[in-house]
């Protein structure tokens, strides 16, 4: 057997298998935090390496397909890595690795100053690795049911991570999150049942062929049920209300990885099903309206908030609208823009939430009413925030600008009135993002602490011991009334800086990356590369 044949397709299941193996090992090593840290980092670094190879190989040799379990071909479970999946894998692997480094730094720092650790290591590492496996499985799934299983793996670990420690605020936030996720999973299951009843298969490549033969009404029902399930996971308006209520209370690294990855898995599922299963979608208008409302209502929510975490959660919802915009255009340019936007947004949103974690550590809170003077307290952190904020709001020449230009360009070339409306909506959203983040900058970083409306009242209450603020139930925010800000742990700052740099790197490699996403989009649009590489000739009907 030729060794090169073996390596490439055998690498396809590795992004799922390695983290699961790592989860088992970290669970076994639960008494030795150092071994746990070593295993987790080694595993996720290996996944990054595998993802790099997959990106390169799929770009050169086309989609890589592996049939598991040696069943007869269309019957078994297939894992498929095409250009889109491989790029998603690479970005998510980098993000999970850097957030893990951040979490390790936080865990060590917390155990140093003997406050209760925010990320209990024994549970954190295995759960986090299972989350990584679930995300990879969703990206690689070649059939709808495996996609469902991937979603369930990542959702279940996210239930554990979002309620980590079991403090009141987290349990409350977790309740909403778990119930909403359960509902979307139930809808997804109903959708799969309907798909199977109508076509007799759940394999995506076979579905791509068979759904074309269905009557338009039946196909519309299938499309709507799948879209609804994915839109809840991707937090598309009007199914986005759960997100800003649940994400902010989780530990900083958990929020960062959720914000970066979980909604994007939903977006990935929408891209995949829309392009592969429903290429002549009658729902483009609906998707465009959803995109517009997601963008505008999300960002208006962000403008009205006074807490940094909630502002970022609302901008997260809002910017999902850009990706839906690209998908709704249903042109190769639009899809390419959406894929580029996903890659950009995963890195930048994660970076901003990591920075928020550091702000909370430095200033003791993330409420803008009580923050100030952070630019003096930590110029490095201020620089990181400034660069990331400008990147997210789309200031040239950063990747946020390039991603938005790509989408707006695609929108203009479609040229319908609705597309123009979305272009305008996209520009307004970008400006409002800039406004919301500039407000954060001027309040938290630029003004002196004395100017913060509620800082003096707190300090006075602290001094004469009549603090009327009840101690927070969350151990993380209980330390917030610290007179002297703590120095930022170097590991956490390093991981955050690296995350911001990855965001900048996307700007540097924007040319090749855009070309890559365009190739990925034209693969998706023509559908042939996917179908022919998954299905053997005799069952291709």
């Amino acid at each position, binding site marked *: 057997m030729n060794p090169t044949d073996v390596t490439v397709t055998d690498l396809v299941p590795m992004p799922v298998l390695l983290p699961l193996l790592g989860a088992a090992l970290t669970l076994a090593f639960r008494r030795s935090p150092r071994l746990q840290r070593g295993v987790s980092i080694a595993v996720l670094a290996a996944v990054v390496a595998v993802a790099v190879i997959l990106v390169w190989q799929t770009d050169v040799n086309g989609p890589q397909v592996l049939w598991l379990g040696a069943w007869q071909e*269309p019957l078994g479970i297939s894992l498929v890595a095409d250009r889109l999946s491989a790029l998603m894998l690479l970005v998510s692997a980098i993000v999970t690795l850097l957030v893990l480094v951040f979490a390790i730094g936080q865990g060590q720092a917390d155990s140093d100053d003997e406050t209760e650790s925010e990320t209990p290591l024994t549970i954190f590492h295995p759960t986090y690795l299972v989350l990584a496996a679930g995300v990879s499985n969703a990206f690689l799934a070649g059939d709808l049911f495996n996609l469902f299983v991937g979603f369930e793996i990542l959702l279940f670990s996210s239930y554990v991570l979002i309620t980590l420690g079991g403090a009141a*605020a987290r349990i409350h936030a*977790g309740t909403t999150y778990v119930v909403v996720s359960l509902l979307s999973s*139930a809808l997804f299951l109903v959708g799969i049942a309907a798909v199977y009843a109508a076509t*007799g298969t759940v394999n995506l490549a076979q579905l791509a062929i068979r759904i074309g033969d269905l009557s338009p009404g039946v196909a519309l029902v299938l499309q709507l049920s799948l879209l609804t399930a994915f839109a809840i996971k991707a937090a598309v308006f009007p199914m986005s209300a759960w997100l800003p209520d649940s994400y902010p209370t989780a530990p900083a690294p958990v929020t960062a990885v959720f914000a970066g990855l979980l909604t994007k898995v939903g977006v990935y599922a929408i891209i995949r099903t829309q392009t592969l299963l429903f290429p002549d979608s009658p729902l483009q208008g609906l998707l465009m309206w959803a995109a517009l409302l997601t963008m505008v209502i999300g960002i208006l929510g962000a403008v009205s908030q*006074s807490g940094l975490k909630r502002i970022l959660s609302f901008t997260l919802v809002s910017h999902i609208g850009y990706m839906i915009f690209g998908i709704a255009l249903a042109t190769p340019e639009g899809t390419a823009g959406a894929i580029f936007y996903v890659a950009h947004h995963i890195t930048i949103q994660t970076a901003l939430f990591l920075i928020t974690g550091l702000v909370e550590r430095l200033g003791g809170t993330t409420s803008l009413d009580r923050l100030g003077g952070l630019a003096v307290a930590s110029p490095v952190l201020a620089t990181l925030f400034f660069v990331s904020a400008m990147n997210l709001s789309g200031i040239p020449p950063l990747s946020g600008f390039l991603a938005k230009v790509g989408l707006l360009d695609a929108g203009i070339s479609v040229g319908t009135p609705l597309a123009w409306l979305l272009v305008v909506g996209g520009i307004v959203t970008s400006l409002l993002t800039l406004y919301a983040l500039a407000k954060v900058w001027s309040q938290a970083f630029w003004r002196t602490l004395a100017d913060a409306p509620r800082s003096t009242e707190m300090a006075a209450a602290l001094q004469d011991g009549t603090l009327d603020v*009840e101690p927070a139930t969350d151990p993380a925010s209980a330390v917030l009334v610290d007179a002297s800000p703590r120095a930022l742990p170097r590991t956490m700052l390093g991981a955050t800086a690296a995350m911001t740099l990855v965001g900048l790197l996307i700007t540097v490699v924007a040319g090749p990356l855009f070309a890559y996403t365009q190739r990925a989009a034209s693969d998706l649009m023509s559908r042939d590369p996917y179908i022919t590489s998954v299905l053997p000739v005799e069952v291709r009907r």
Partner: protein
Amino acid sequence: MTTLAPTLIESTLQPNITLVLVTVGLVAAGTALALDRSLVRVLLGMVLIGNGIAVLYLVVSGRAGRAPFVGEDPATISDPLPQAMVLTAIVISLATIGFLLAMSYRLWQISGTDDVPDDAEDARIQRLAIEDQTSSTYDPSEESTTTSDELADGDGSPRRP
């Protein structure tokens, strides 16, 4: 599978009406329960919805047949694929129920009730109502139960007037 598919689709065109009615009943009852404020009722609702969907997969699998073992005549067995899927779904929902039970117990430990709390925006609007003017729908006897730590108060409880 390709040889099975056409017959499958035909048989799902004439679904078993009892199974369909059971599915509808379970999912409807589950939805009603899931809309309740108490987490345990929500949990029971989710269990019912999950079971309803499991029955739905029996509808999807078409006409009932013999147990699908290797060596049976493919024409006489029932379709094994939905059974494999629904088995996976049942295992997942079992784990979810365990987790939700633990979570509602923890919620009860913390707050003495298993009611799902107000969200942060509700609490903010309620506080505005107390401070500025009371809207006609405002009921002062209901106190907010939110615990969001980022509202201007920061302590998670509504500001007293």
